[in-house]
């Protein structure tokens, strides 16, 4: 495993090194002293493994493709934003907009996530062991958001075709988000997501939330919902 110490390396040099790995590379990297720096390990394209030993700032693992990025600490705003594929795991808590607009891959947050977790998600799967803040899955289009703890107010506001599973309590649901029957397919999907994420939770305790699809087309009768 190659070790890169950010106490003596610039963000640009780190990212350039990681981004230079070829498509077939399975190299492993350990990054020391991240010190809350922003945009670490972003724009990766190869299936490499990157382990960051400490807290990271904004947009860690942004737009990730294929790589496995593990943060042994807390993550700032927009961790794994617009991720396309791969795996990003935060061992601590995540700030706002975790997994924002992600198109694919799996984001695992071992702690809790702040507001707008999964905002505009477009196919990413997100598993949060703890709780999520307000307006999580806002305008979520596709993918799954699994919340093992509680969800604050505004969950799933203006949600499209993404699906949310919640084990704990929910605050007031967002516009056009409703609780829906948990089917056998849902149980299977949830069980697989929990297994892939390595999070232990009982699928039987979860409820499903999705779009009521009442706001998909503009209707004046829905004025109070906008």
């Amino acid at each position, binding site marked *: 495993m190659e070790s890169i110490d950010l106490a003596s390396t610039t963000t640009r040099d780190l990212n350039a090194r990681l981004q230079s790995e070829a498509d077939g590379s399975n190299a492993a990297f350990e990054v020391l002293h991240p010190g809350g720096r*922003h945009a670490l390990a*972003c724009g990766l394209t190869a299936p490499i493994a990157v382990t960051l030993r400490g807290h990271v700032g904004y947009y860690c693992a942004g737009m990730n493709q294929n790589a496995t990025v593990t943060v042994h600490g807390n993550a700032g705003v927009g961790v794994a934003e617009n991720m396309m594929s791969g795996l990003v795991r935060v061992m601590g808590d995540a700030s706002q907009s975790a997994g924002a607009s992600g198109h694919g891959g799996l984001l695992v947050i071992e702690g809790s996530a702040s507001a707008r977790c999964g905002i505009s998600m477009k196919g990413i799967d997100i598993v949060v062991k703890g709780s999520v803040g307000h307006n999580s899955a806002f305008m979520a289009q596709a993918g799954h958001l699994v919340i093992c703890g509680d969800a604050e107010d505004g969950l799933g506001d203006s949600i499209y075709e993404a699906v949310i599973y919640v084990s704990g309590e929910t605050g007031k649901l967002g516009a056009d988000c409703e609780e829906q029957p948990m089917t056998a397919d849902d149980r299977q999907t949830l069980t697989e997501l929990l297994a892939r994420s390595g999070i232990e939770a009982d699928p039987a305790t979860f409820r499903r939330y999705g779009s009521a699809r009442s706001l998909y087309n503009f209707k*004046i009768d829905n004025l109070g919902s906008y």
Partner: protein
Amino acid sequence: MTKPAPHLRESHIFDRAAIHEIQRAAREGIYKIRGFGAKRAVPHFDDLVFLGASVSRYPLEGYRERCGTDVVLGARNASKPIHLDIPITIAGMSFGSLSANAKEALGRGANEVGTSTTTGDGGMTDEERGHSNKLVYQLLPSRYGMNPDHLRKADAIEVVIGQGAKPGGGGMLLGQKISPRVAEMRTLPEDIDQRSACRHPDWTGPDDLEIKIEELRELTGWEKPIYVKVGASRTYYDTLLAVKSGADVIVVDGMQGGTGATQECFIEHVGIPTLPAVRLASDALKELGVHRRGVQLIVSGGIRTGADVAKAIALGADAVSIGTAALIALGDNRPELAEEYEKLGTAPGFYDEWQAGRDPAGITTQDPELEQRLDPVAGGHRLANYLRVLTLEAQTIARACGKSHVHNLEPEDLQALTLEAAAMARVPLAGTGWIPGQGGF
């Protein structure tokens, strides 16, 4: 329109248009959504004139002495800045709002004259990249179709905060224009009214924007110029903040800027005109010491002629951007389609239902049959012709003012025909030395 009898007096406030809109709203129960830009009269470049040469200024020979038009965008931080041959670019317009043939035609036209075109909501299509030698990729709040591979393929990145037709408003693409391909690109079901978010999902405010720009540079190896586009509103402060956030290029879109689909109340009543916006933005750049040397200013919103181009540049822009005019050059609103416009309840020169997807010119549509009406090769050539005319007109004016490059035009070359324009552009009212608001009165 029926001409009223002489004794009938129309209300200035409740005129026929206002009455018609009240009746329509009462009948349909929904606000009016349309395309195009602001239609009401606002102070514009028409209210300015160039002084031209005189005893104290001598002109350049029109067809003999060189007048440069090239622009370099993004050299402040990008290792690969964009070089344009003319100071006129094509504004961001989405595939979805426009047909694939229209996007191709825009790329072909821009290529012919050495300028850039811009993606829009929904991401980058292969055809668009393939037909645009210089392509600016927009990072929009919706992040529809946002793909890091496309970021890396782009020649520049434009972070869109707002547009002139609707500063503070998100986008919309009505269900009738959501083809299977558009739906797939945006990861949304077909036939729904697609709302594009008005705020970015992962940053808020200038401090965050600075970090976002850093991420974009890290993602693309610090190669690409980063533009920040704002709708004209608090333009002076927006420009200051965008530059301090690290933008290489500021794009300011005035309220006359076009849109594919927006509420009419937004189009006509939110934002400020292009005329004051260009001056406010250039003031901010001058205050920071980066005007004409570091950060470039692109101005859009109501650019129609080479005179508009020259006036925008004289007031501080490095380049202008066109959207509505480009679509008209492709064939929008042309008289040959009068019968078809009539079937839609409109007429050439008035057609603005770009949201509806029934465009007889095949431009603002996703209908496969209508789309075929636009020949992208011929359309692209018409656009190139138009861009050449704009450039030649701007050069003609610059030479008349004695300038060997259009960027040498300056506010001192202008005077205003109205008090409003004099105050907004901060140039003297014609025939006086008076600039309203300056000198204590």
